[in-house]
């Protein structure tokens, strides 16, 4: 396999293929930079061009683009508090407060470096997982997937902040919004008010943009200031890189977690950054997550690029797309005369390995390219809100419209945006709402299949029990540890 890997590297480094990788990287960064657009849009753009192309060149183009979407999307998340794509929602939590302190460059440096390392680790995981992929993927049945969804939902509890009731309610509102549209178990529409637009449910980009971006627009205008409350930008890109190096274990843990979550088809890559953020918050010492802790940027950014490597495993080896982006990638394979499946490990192994290398190389080039852009783009955070907001409004409305190309997208953006603004003003946490929304359909679907197929017996599945115990530890571990340590302190006094 090592010989095949070296042969694949030689193919990937061919100048014509590197050129196409760079073209993909350029598009990926632009797509990531523009809020509302994501890997799915980038893939759809490239798909018409790859028909009949040499598979190595076609994959260089597609994978080059996919690999760096979550590198480019860091800019709007950190600088404006607006998720560039669904994978960078958690970056806002600490990236934006850092930008407010005038440390946007530092946050960007850490985020981009971690994206690069995460992407490389994702590639390595993809390479290492190839021989073990089949038995692992088949072991994920509906009860396990349901419990993994519950694990994701438990992150809402961790992000609730000082008010658990507000956090729980926010998560429940998200679950409720996620249940709008057709039911997964039966052809029946719920809470659609006879609007055709609502029959498919609300789309994630619209909800994410509305819940995070709309409140930012209004707040920037009412407070008449720039994003950065400091008048000068402090801390450079290299300081951020240094922060990432200091927290290398967190980078590694988050990247491996990202790859593993990406690996599970159907769980949804949109939750990977929240899982990494929640896990980071629980495991680091003296956590100030949510107040501008650089580790709150490092954890999700290490995970979201790593996820791409993991997500490619079920896509390429079994033809199971875990997301819209990978579904289009499958279409791309067909257009190039290939088919996902076990052949990718036998006759098409060089192509599979070239994908691994492209993923690694694209992450390195993408991160370096973005780092050179940090300084000029970080100045955006110094522009007064009333000068920036009108342009942002146009960008966000067009971005929201790209979800379904329907007027409903724009109306939903404003309605949910107002809900987000009220929540912001009243100090209700918004991330739990988004987590609830993202996981609503998966939770319902896997719960229903588990009950219909296994009755209540699925609760005795050892993996289910293990994940259940993990959820309990995650939710209660922090407060138990705090009680123990305060008791110990009292005894010492």
């Amino acid at each position, binding site marked *: 396999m090592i010989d095949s890997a070296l042969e694949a590297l030689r193919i990937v480094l061919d100048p014509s293929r590197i050129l196409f990788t760079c073209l993909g990287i350029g598009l990926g960064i632009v797509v990531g930079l523009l809020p509302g657009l994501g890997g799915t849009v980038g893939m759809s753009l490239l798909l018409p061009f790859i028909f009949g192309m040499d598979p190595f060149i076609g994959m260089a183009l597609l994978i080059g683009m996919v690999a760096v979407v979550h590198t480019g999307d860091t800019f709007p998340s950190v600088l404006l508090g607006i998720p560039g794509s669904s994978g960078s929602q958690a970056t806002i939590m600490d990236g934006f407060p850092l930008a407010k302190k005038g440390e946007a460059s530092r946050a960007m440096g850490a985020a981009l470096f971690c994206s690069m390392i995460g992407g490389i680790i994702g590639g390595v995981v993809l390479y290492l997982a190839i021989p073990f992929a089949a038995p692992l993927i088949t072991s994920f049945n509906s009860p396990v997937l349901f419990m993994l969804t519950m694990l994701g939902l438990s992150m809402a509890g961790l992000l609730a902040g000082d008010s658990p009731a507000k956090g729980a*309610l926010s998560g429940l509102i998200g679950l409720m919004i996620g249940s709008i549209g057709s039911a997964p178990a039966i052809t029946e529409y719920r809470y659609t008010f006879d609007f055709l637009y609502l029959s498919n449910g609300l789309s994630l980009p619209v909800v994410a943009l509305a819940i995070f971006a709309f409140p930012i627009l209004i707040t920037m205008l009412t407070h008449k200031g720039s994003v950065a409350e400091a008048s000068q930008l402090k801390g450079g890109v290299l300081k951020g890189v240094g922060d990432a190096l200091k927290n290398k274990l967190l980078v590694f843990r988050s990247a491996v977690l990202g790859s593993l979550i990406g690996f599970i088809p159907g769980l949804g890559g949109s939750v990977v950054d929240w899982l990494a953020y929640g896990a980071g918050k629980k495991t680091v010492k003296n956590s100030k997550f949510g107040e501008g802790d650089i580790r709150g940027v490092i954890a999700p950014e290490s995970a979201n690029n790593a996820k791409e490597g993991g997500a490619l495993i079920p896509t390429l080896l079994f033809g199971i797309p875990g997301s819209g982006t990978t579904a289009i990638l499958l279409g791309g394979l067909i257009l190039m005369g290939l088919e996902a499946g076990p052949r990718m490990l036998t006759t098409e192994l060089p192509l599979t390995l070239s994908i691994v290398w492209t993923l690694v190389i694209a992450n390195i080039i993408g991160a370096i390219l973005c780092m050179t852009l940090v300084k000029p783009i970080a100045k955006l955070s110094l522009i007064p809100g009333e000068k920036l907001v009108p342009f942002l409004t146009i960008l966000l409305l067009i971005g929201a419209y790209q979800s379904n190309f329907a007027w409903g997208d724009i109306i939903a953006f404003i309605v949910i945006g107002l809900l987000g603004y009220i929540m912001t003003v009243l100090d209700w946490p918004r991330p739990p709402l988004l987590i609830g929304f993202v996981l609503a359909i998966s939770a319902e679907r896997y719960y229903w299949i588990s009950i219909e197929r296994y009755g209540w017996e699925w609760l005795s599945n050892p993996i289910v029990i293990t994940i259940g115990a993990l959820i309990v530890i995650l939710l209660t571990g922090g407060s138990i540890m705090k009680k123990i340590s305060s008791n110990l302190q009292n005894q010492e006094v």
Partner: protein
Amino acid sequence: MNKQTLNIIFTFCIFAAFVWAAVTALTFSRLAQFFPLYVSIAGSVVSGIYLITEIMKLIKRKNEASHSVMILKPLIYTGWVVGYVISIFFFGLFIASAAYLIAFLLIESNFPLFKAFYSTGIALFVMTVLSRLLDIAWPSSILLGM
């Protein structure tokens, strides 16, 4: 408006929405019902308890000062966004964006006339180029059909 009072009003709205969702869920068939019903019942209970505790807190701290919340300004700025959306609906994205940008930059951002037109021109140019290159769809207008 007082922040605590507004929080109670908002929580009441959330409580009412959950109760309505639970009642509506009862009309769905068994397979479509269970998930929204569980969630809305949980939401009703949590929001109900939270609402009662907040009301009790308000009664206890009746004489204490609370943060006030801006109402008028956010409404005005939301009005700008809604107005822009309505103008897209009637005149299409290009014309509506031009009008919105010029009006906003002159009235809210206090840009000089030339700078407002200049900035609008650049924004429209970038918008057009990007949407051509990335094949980005624009919301259509009912009057002009573009």
